[in-house]
């Protein structure tokens, strides 16, 4: 940690413990240690919600470029219980209702988050079935989501990172190495936890498949996927 940052963190802690004390009237560069502190002159904007139309278009693109009704048919096929109808989800996605003059929803809420979970799980699980469980096998390059080899057993951290990078680009649109949080490690932990706790009884997934499905879900449900 360089000196500048050490000071900064210290100052943050100090400011919390010195609540109520008089604050000296100084400009930033007069504060000891701040002589060379850069001013942040960049423009700040809060992230906004991806329009529901763009969410659905992206969803359909990820699912193979199908029409909404074609995707609906495939997602509900086989008694999966993964999907109902698009109509059931449109309101919770925030789409406006022009008939009733209900405006477009531009803020997330817990029900919308629940809806994102329902839709995200459907896509990841059904895509996994199509990508990894079809007969004949689907070539890696022809898969919808899981465009990497999936060994029968769990991969190690390095193997995970390579594969996760593919999914991260696909869903969030940039390399995982640029992620501002410790994302790869965090997702690797999720992957391992899922595998460790998976109960194959009554599940159409093996433990490893369930592990990759939850990684996929974590990305399509990620705040950075819903916002831009």
């Amino acid at each position, binding site marked *: 940690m360089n000196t500048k940052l050490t000071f900064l963190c210290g100052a943050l802690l100090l400011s919390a413990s010195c609540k109520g004390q008089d604050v000296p009237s100084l400009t930033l560069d007069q504060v000891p240690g701040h002589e060379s502190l850069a001013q942040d002159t960049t423009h700040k904007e809060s992230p*906004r919600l991806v*329009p529901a139309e763009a969410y659905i278009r992206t969803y359909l693109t990820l699912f193979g470029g199908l029409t909404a009704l074609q995707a609906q048919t495939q997602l509900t096929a086989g008694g999966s219980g993964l999907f109902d109808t698009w109509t059931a989800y449109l309101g919770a996605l925030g789409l406006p209702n022009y008939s009733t003059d209900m405006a477009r929803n531009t803020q997330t809420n817990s029900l919308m988050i629940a809806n994102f979970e329902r839709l995200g799980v459907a896509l990841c699980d059904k895509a996994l079935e199509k990508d990894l469980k079809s007969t004949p096998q689907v070539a890696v390059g022809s898969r919808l989501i899981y465009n990497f080899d999936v060994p029968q057993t769990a991969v190690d951290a390095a193997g995970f990172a390579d594969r996760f990078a593919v999914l991260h680009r696909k869903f969030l649109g940039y390399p995982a190495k640029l992620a501002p949080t410790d994302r790869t490690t965090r997702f690797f932990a999720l992957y391992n936890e899922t595998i460790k706790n998976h109960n194959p009884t009554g599940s159409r997934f093996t433990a490893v498949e369930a592990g990759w499905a939850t990684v996929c879900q974590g990305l399509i449900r990620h705040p950075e996927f819903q916002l831009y």
Partner: protein
Amino acid sequence: MRHAQTSLSRRPTVVASLLLGLCLFGGQSQAATAEKTLLDYKYFRTLCIDLLGRMPTEQDLQEFERSDFNLESWIDTHLSGDTYADRLTRIYSDLLRPQTVSFQVGTNRNTLARILVKDDTGKDTWVYYRPGQRRARHAQVPKTTDPTYPQWNNLVKAGFCLLESETGLKYPDVNAALPPTGTAKPVDKAVLDQYTVVVKPWWLYSDYKSSSPADRYNATTWPARFPGYTLNNELLKESDTKTDTMQIRVCKEEANTVASAPMDTAPTTTLDCRTGYGVSNSQGCGCGPGLELCMPAANFLASQPRAAFVSSRNTLLGVDDPTDAQAFEYRTWQSLWVAEEPQVFFYNLFLEDRDFREVVSAKYTYVNGPLAQFYKLSSRSNWNDKDLGSTSLPSPDAMPANLLPQDLMNWQKVDAGSSSAGILTMPLFLFKYATRRSRAHAVYNMFLCRDFVAPAGLLLPPSKESDLMKREGCAACHQTLEPLSAYFARWVENDWSYLDPKQYPAQSDACKQVGGKIPASCNTRYDNIFSTPTTGMLRGAYASVENTDLGAKGMGEYLTHRADFAPCVAQNVAESFLGRSLGTEDSALRDQMTTALVEGGYRVKPLVKVLLKSQQYRSANNLSSTVWRSGVTP
């Protein structure tokens, strides 16, 4: 997607993009990605969402990561096309909200109901009829005192062409909305031949205009030829629900195909058969070739139609990519396309980057097959005037001859008539915003970004002043609102009927007050309160006779000449793209966008380009300054 050719051809491209370049690890580019920062990626993703309507694919990312990638050029390329036009259309659709719960276009004069009778062989046969049709038999109806009169109830009350004595069926008053009663008996062949005829209707045959139609609806081949056009079984099967319907039997008058015909009670007067008045007053006025002017109710009453088509109530992705499939009766079918009209108009305005002022001034509109059909008769079937004057609706003659009712995805530009003014005279707008004031208010909101809000502390003391422009308190808003409302005085409230100045002058000598009241016959259209002993005042015109005569066109000119028209376009677009309201700190951006719009001849593309390159859109980040100072490159 409002334009079939472009949108439908886009999907294979999407699929191809998914398949391209994928290898062991998904085709991740080995190009030098390190030089791109997270902010670069996020900006590109934002551009994809706003201009392509979706997040970037692997192919998009690979293109972006190429060393020779030129972002300016990429933006220029994608500031056009289907998804760009869709994005901007969405802004104005959200403002206009072009649907309404109550919109219904059915009347007894554009609708074919049907009654199940037995033909001369005893076989069940639907006989289609238009309840509001003038018939030859109307001249033969006996007096109500005549003992045979009840036999004519079928004709007089239900509008059917066969009598009770001929069918064995008795039709209750239509107000009771009950099906025919009685026991059907075979109808004599001579009677059937005299009063009915067999037709191959438009909904079953694409070549219905030919002398011997042969191209019948085919559930296998038609979806590719006529995307989205799906018939419900009600129209595909006979009453046994099994036998394919190949042709229908219809009352004879309805089968007439002429565009005009003599008035029954005044044969020297020629009536336009594409008006409600013509239908009700001339037995010569039929439903046109293949019955194309009339819509199938698929039931015994026009007012209680059954599902005839299959379509979508959720078309927010575009009518070519519905998210549901539901049975539609013809009224909801027509209202769907009427609601699409302004959206297609916006779409093409942005797609072609036309002068945005046309939104309130255009003398053209767009129609697809069903909408063209709507404008041929349905749209004017509930008007009772013999002469519709210079209506603001597109003329039936302006409808493209090559546009079939099955052509759902084929939208064509047509002349909308001299009184039209962009979306201001579209039936959807006039009906959704049902009163003159609500119409004025809606456009005041939409195109000037303003609202009528009373000043703080305003008091509204009791007053006998009828003129809201003068009345204390009310005047604060109504001084502005009333003259604006007057622009819409020629469009009947809760309707889109047009009051032509020839028949309905803003100030009418015939409707002046006599003894303090205007004639009773004037009450519907003229307002006694603002009439005088010297002139009758058209309703809604009192605030400005001049604006009344200028009509919607005048409203368009008012809006586009206002100083806040162009800034409002900038505001609407910026707020949609940035996902927040503009504040005073955004005034420079708004000014730049406004300048780009005005200097670009009111084309919206230059305005959007300014926005996409602004720091608010392009270089904004949400990192706290602490994190930013850490050296994190956003």
